[in-house]
């Protein structure tokens, strides 16, 4: 096996991208020199405040939003949590557990009540998401199920693309939130966010299903009151993987809430934002000071905010050129993987995917072993195999597109980035086939390709 001791080939940009030097430079003055607390009234404070607010405006411009619609958080996970719990708990009046009024035979709640809410009965207790969301969304929704909410997890088909018609079918008068990711972090498939937004808009325009839904009990008494307004359901998208490659203008997308993260876009770690359309009521996750319109207390992370803004600007500038460059490399890589390694299948739609994402299942070899052999050969990538997760569960994304467990255990994600060249791919294709040959040499499995 060829070894390259000095050079590392990094193909895990979807996990973390190296911080851009320009970002680092922009952040530099805000560590020691301009260290002030942006909430202070004196000069040091004003300098910091000015940086935060100027960057908020610049970011808002890129997103096609207003400055006050941008809430800085500590990253994608927090933004997702703030969007989901923020919307839901604002509606329940901050109460975190629904009281079940009725249960079915198995004891599952069929009707719920918000103790302190102006909405006295039933109303909005339903959330729609997908089976292959990031765990930040998925596990937030699972928590809401424990709190008495009902969640619909939409299928994503064998290509890993949500069908807007399925969203239309799942919408109910009591749906409060739809959360569907913009681009999947594992298989890179891009979701039809505009079309889904349109489906939701039409649903709301037609009264949010109200006309269909005055429910009654067996005796004909109404059990459901009318809905407070047709602003629901809100539409949230986790766009963490998107800014470098896709249109993130919230107006054009038609989303109400959007999550963005710094470290996936060559910015710093520990910073993210939630776009929340003006008028949306959110209950904070944390309680404290009045920063970020009381929605995110704690002293603002000034250098990281500056870094996030710079990273977004660069992503916005380079989007088209970089996407075109990477699509070519991606398709070249996929072609070689499928062509030169037998029993390899592509996961996710071949075209409706991020320009930098390659995800293949290599059968009869196991992902963790492949990652470690590649690491030894100087290549960094990731796998959907269970062995790399604490829970020892294989990728829920690969299972969601209908592939068997064995495919998930052999799923390999290569995510390209600004530094990736064709030469890097050629090097991977020089070492990978031999690694697979070796692992298959002592593998007792012979999986038949059937999907």
């Amino acid at each position, binding site marked *: 096996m060829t070894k390259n001791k000095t050079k590392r080939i990094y193909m895990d940009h979807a996990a973390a991208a190296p911080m851009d030097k320009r970002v680092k430079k922009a952040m530099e003055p805000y560590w020691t020199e301009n260290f002030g607390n942006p909430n202070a009234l004196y000069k040091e404070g004003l300098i910091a405040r000015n940086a935060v607010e100027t960057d908020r405006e610049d970011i808002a411009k890129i997103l096609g939003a207003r400055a006050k619609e941008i809430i800085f958080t500590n990253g994608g996970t927090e933004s997702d949590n703030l969007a989901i719990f923020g919307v839901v708990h604002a509606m329940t009046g901050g109460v975190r557990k629904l009281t079940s009024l009725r249960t079915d035979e198995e004891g599952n709640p069929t009707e719920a009540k918000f103790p302190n809410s102006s909405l006295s009965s039933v109303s909005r207790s339903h959330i729609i998401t997908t089976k292959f969301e990031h765990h930040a969304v998925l596990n937030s929704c699972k928590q809401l199920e424990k709190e008495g909410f009902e969640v619909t997890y939409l299928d994503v088909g064998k290509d890993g693309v949500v069908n807007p018609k399925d969203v239309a079918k799942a919408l109910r008068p009591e749906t409060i939130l739809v959360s569907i990711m913009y681009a999947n972090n594992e298989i890179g498939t891009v979701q039809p966010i505009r079309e889904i937004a349109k489906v939701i808009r039409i649903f709301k325009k037609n009264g949010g299903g109200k006309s269909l839904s005055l429910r009654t009990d067996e005796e004909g008494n109404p059990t459901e009151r009318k809905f407070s307004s047709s602003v629901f359901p809100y539409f949230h998208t986790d766009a963490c993987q998107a800014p470098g490659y896709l249109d993130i203008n919230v107006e054009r997308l038609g989303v109400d809430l959007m999550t963005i993260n710094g470290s996936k876009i060559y910015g710093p770690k520990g910073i993210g934002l939630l776009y929340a359309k003006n008028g949306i009521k959110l209950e904070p996750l944390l309680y404290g000071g009045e920063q970020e319109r009381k929605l995110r207390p704690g002293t603002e992370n000034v250098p990281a905010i500056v870094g996030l803004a710079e990273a977004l600007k660069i992503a916005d500038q380079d989007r088209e050129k970089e996407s075109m460059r990477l699509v070519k490399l991606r398709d070249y890589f996929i072609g070689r993987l499928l062509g030169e390694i037998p029993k390899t299948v592509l996961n996710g739609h071949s075209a409706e995917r991020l320009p930098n994402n390659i995800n293949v299942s290599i059968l*009869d*070899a*196991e*992902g*963790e*072993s492949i990652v*470690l*052999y590649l690491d*030894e050969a100087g290549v960094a990538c990731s796998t959907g*195999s*269970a*062995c790399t997760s*604490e829970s*020892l569960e*294989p990728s829920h994304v690969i299972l969601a597109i209908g592939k*068997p*467990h*064995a495919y998930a*255990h052999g799923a390999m994600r290569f995510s390209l980035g600004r530094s990736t060249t064709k030469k890097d791919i050629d090097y991977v294709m020089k070492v990978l086939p031999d690694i697979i040959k070796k692992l298959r*040499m*002592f*593998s*007792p*499995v012979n*999986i038949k390709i059937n999907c």
Partner: protein
Amino acid sequence: MADVDKWVYSSVVKDHFMHPRGFLLGEPKEGEFDSYGEVGSLACGDIIKVWIKADKETDKIKDFKWQTWGCATAIASASAFAEMIMKNNGMKIEEAMNIKPKDIADYLGGLPARKFHCSILADKAFKKAVENYRNKK
């Protein structure tokens, strides 16, 4: 600075994983082994098959081979087990039956707790092979 040569598991695991010993290449030939045992599943992500040949007189293991599909520690523990029982021209079956997952983990210089039950499968596959062997006799 962090240790750049640091590896996720012990150096012994790495050695067995990168240079596995005692695996069977391809299918066994007719009469090459007395019996075989298999544990694991595709769903779990680890499958191990082992083959044994025993000396009927001495009850010693004359040959032991394995094949593993799974993570680094699954491959390394199969390789380590093969090395353990084939030392000194093969252990007695009874002695090899006493090898516990902890013995294999210790031999490998330790394994993460979460990897213990799922990736140390060689001893279990071996016990199955011995069971098949005893039933055959």
